[in-house]
């Protein structure tokens, strides 16, 4: 168990950020944001430009970022969030580097509807009637592989560990601890960290907190893990299914919706009803669908349970406050978009009084087709293409994304799927090259 360093307080104002930057000898600041695909981007500025940046006077070429305003030479404005000011762990007392997470605004200062972070804030605001103050915790799985000089990286692991194992000679363990320390030094609270199922697989858990903070934490983890792992000769990957014969990496999203038993049931109903459409957002790569198969406790059906490890939604009984765990997302998703659609699905269920049926006892993998039909249990999409079809047909999830992001995401993902469909994979060579 790790805890946040004593005395850490997030700066709340522009003045506090400027004071901290001066006190800590900050030389450069990265103005960081996520594109529609969830990939972290940044613009680095010298500290002399920090005040101007905090005043929203730093611009970048929006036409060069996926899903923004491609094709148009439009200068977009970066609007830093003072509360996200943090020193990178490689900072020294003499020379520090900091980051600020930013919203994207239009040149006239109005919110940009293609900004994922702004969109998440809007989704939280619009669902406030049903979800006054949702709290969310994340369990993030990822792999640490040996870093080799190769075009695409390696999949060999530095350990032979398994669930909760501890080995004194495990560089992966050391790297994971260093990642946790780095996160804490940046003010990101970590609840726990441990070895996962397979060799090289790890998990870091964030405690319950605000929805925006959770999305920021995942974006920060993905950036920091890669930097820190490299120092240990390792490569961190949040790719959903890097190895065919081992467990994939999931992102379990654990909500506290508040309210009573009825709110919990309606919330579960909302998550199950919108799960197929949310898959395009929460499982946004072609590789995601190789994790969502009947193995390694991955969810494949829209069913909830109190204990079953492979149900889509797990609601442990007799917990106060009641928690609702959504188990299908993977850590390669855009955390802002994923949390926006999840919060919207929860809220829609609560507003519409959507009931989820009875909880399932036992494994979902044992369900017959007849049982599934009688219990109203659907199947998660089996491919990114199928997921986009589901997204197209769900007005609630489309509205949660907003027109701009829906179309940008859809276009990008259809193109990605088409590239994947045309590619000839190693499996096909193995299966057919000599056979035919």
């Amino acid at each position: 168990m790790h805890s946040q360093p004593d005395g850490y307080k997030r700066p709340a104002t522009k003045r506090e950020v400027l004071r901290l930057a001066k006190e800590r000898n900050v030389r450069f600041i990265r103005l960081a944001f996520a594109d529609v695909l969830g990939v972290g981007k940044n613009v680095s500025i010298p500290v002399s430009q920090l005040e101007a940046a905090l005043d929203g006077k730093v611009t970048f070429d929006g036409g060069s970022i996926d899903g923004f305003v491609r094709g148009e030479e439009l200068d977009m404005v970066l609007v830093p969030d003072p509360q996200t000011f943090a020193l990178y762990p490689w900072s020294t007392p003499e020379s520090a580097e900091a980051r600020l997470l930013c919203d994207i605004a239009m040149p006239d200062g109005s919110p940009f509807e293609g900004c994922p972070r702004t969109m998440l804030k809007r989704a939280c605001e619009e669902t406030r009637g049903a979800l006054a103050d949702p709290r969310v915790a994340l369990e993030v799985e990822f792999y640490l592989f040996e870093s080799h000089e190769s075009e695409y990286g390696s999949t060999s692991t530095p350990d032979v560990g398994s669930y909760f194992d501890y080995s004194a000679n495990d560089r992966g363990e050391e790297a994971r601890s260093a990642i946790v320390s780095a996160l804490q030094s940046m003010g990101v609270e970590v609840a726990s960290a441990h070895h996962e199922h397979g060799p090289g697989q790890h998990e870091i858990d964030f405690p319950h907190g605000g929805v925006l903070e959770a999305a920021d934490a995942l974006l920060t983890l993905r950036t920091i893990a890669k930097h820190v792992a490299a120092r240990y000769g390792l490569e961190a990957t949040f790719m959903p299914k890097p190895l065919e014969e081992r467990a994939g990496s999931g992102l379990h999203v654990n909500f506290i919706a508040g309210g009573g038993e009825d709110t919990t049931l309606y919330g579960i109903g909302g998550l199950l009803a919108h799960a197929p459409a949310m898959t395009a957002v929460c499982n946004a790569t072609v590789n995601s669908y190789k994790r969502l198969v009947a193995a390694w406790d991955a969810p494949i059906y829209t069913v909830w349970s109190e204990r079953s490890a492979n149900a889509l939604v797990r609601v442990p009984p007799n917990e106060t406050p009641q928690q609702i765990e959504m188990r299908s997302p993977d850590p390669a998703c855009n955390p802002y978009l994923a949390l926006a659609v999840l919060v919207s699905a929860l809220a829609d269920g609560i507003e519409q009084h959507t009931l989820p049926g009875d909880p399932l006892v036992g494994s979902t993998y044992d369900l017959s087709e007849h049982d599934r039909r009688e219990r109203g249990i659907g199947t998660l999409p089996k491919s990114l293409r199928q997921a986009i079809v589901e997204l197209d047909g769900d007005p609630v999830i489309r509205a949660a994304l907003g027109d701009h992001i829906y179309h940008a995401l859809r276009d990008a993902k259809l193109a990605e799927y088409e590239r994947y469909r045309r590619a000839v994979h190693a499996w096909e060579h193995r299966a057919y090259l000599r056979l035919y």
Partner: protein
Amino acid sequence: MTADELVAFAEDLARIAAAGGGPQALAEHLAASTGVAVVVEGIESKRLAAVGRSTHGEARTVPIASGDSKFGELRVFGDGGAELDRVMRLTASAIALELSREAAGEPGRRRAFWERLITRAHTDAAAARDDAAARGIVAASHYVAVALESEHSEERNALRTAALAAFRSSDADGGFLERGTALLFFIPAPREIDAANARTAASLLPRAIAKSHPHPHLNGGVGTRVALVELQQSLQQAQAALSIARRLHGPGRIGVYEDLGAYPLLLSGAGAQALREFSRRTLAPLRAYDEKHQTELERTLRLYFSVGENVKTAAAELNVHRHTVFYRLRQIGEISGCKLDDPHDQLTLRMAIAIDALTT
């Protein structure tokens, strides 16, 4: 009333009419929403419905009419707020629709269909569905009956409104009848999940009206999912569940027949065959699990009861660690749907085991 409240009022009227509520139910909705007393008179001043005590003094009157046909008058006593005229006109329109159906001599009045079903006038599923279609009813293959009861008219009105909203279905038409202080709902359940959701929705009703009625007097019962022509059986179960819930738990509780275990048998004074069927049904999930997974859940349960619920002794008898017994007891609870620490559920399991021991 805000515009949204006005729309909600009209939607509730539509639900009541669609479920076959009739002039009395529509008048009660108007009275509950505005606090006025209501009288519905047909032609020749025939009283069709009345709600509330203060039907004296000056009345506001709205004609009940549809096109050129006049069916009577809607009279209201008391101060019903700024939008009273509008809600009276909406209510009068809904009553006009109901009365025009009657005037047209439609034998297919919705209420009559449900009345026929619960008196087992239909024994053939195809004939029942044809009858429903002739009356403009889209009938589902299966239904669940829910019986709700409150002697307090205000609470009953709130309950009716909440239940009509909670039991809405897009798959097929539901039914609604009023019998004195009882409200009877017939909820389409083409799949098992629809029945599960009907049970849950019914169980949540006391909470739904708790804001306006924090000290509930209501009770309710939910029957099992049955084929359309078996609706009477589900209704009898719902009424038995209502009665058991009231006697065991007092007011404010909804009994679900399937969860009441042995109690319906005790209430009805069941015969040997019903007792054997109950025992078989109760133990079936454990036996199916044991057979499929080669486990000993049923044996563990019998032993656990026979040694006075002493886990240590049960573990010794079974030659397993006591943690294994705890694990099995948790499995038994999940698979049987019975809580082993609940005295009512314990009675069910103990009776099932006792009947099994006596009859096999």
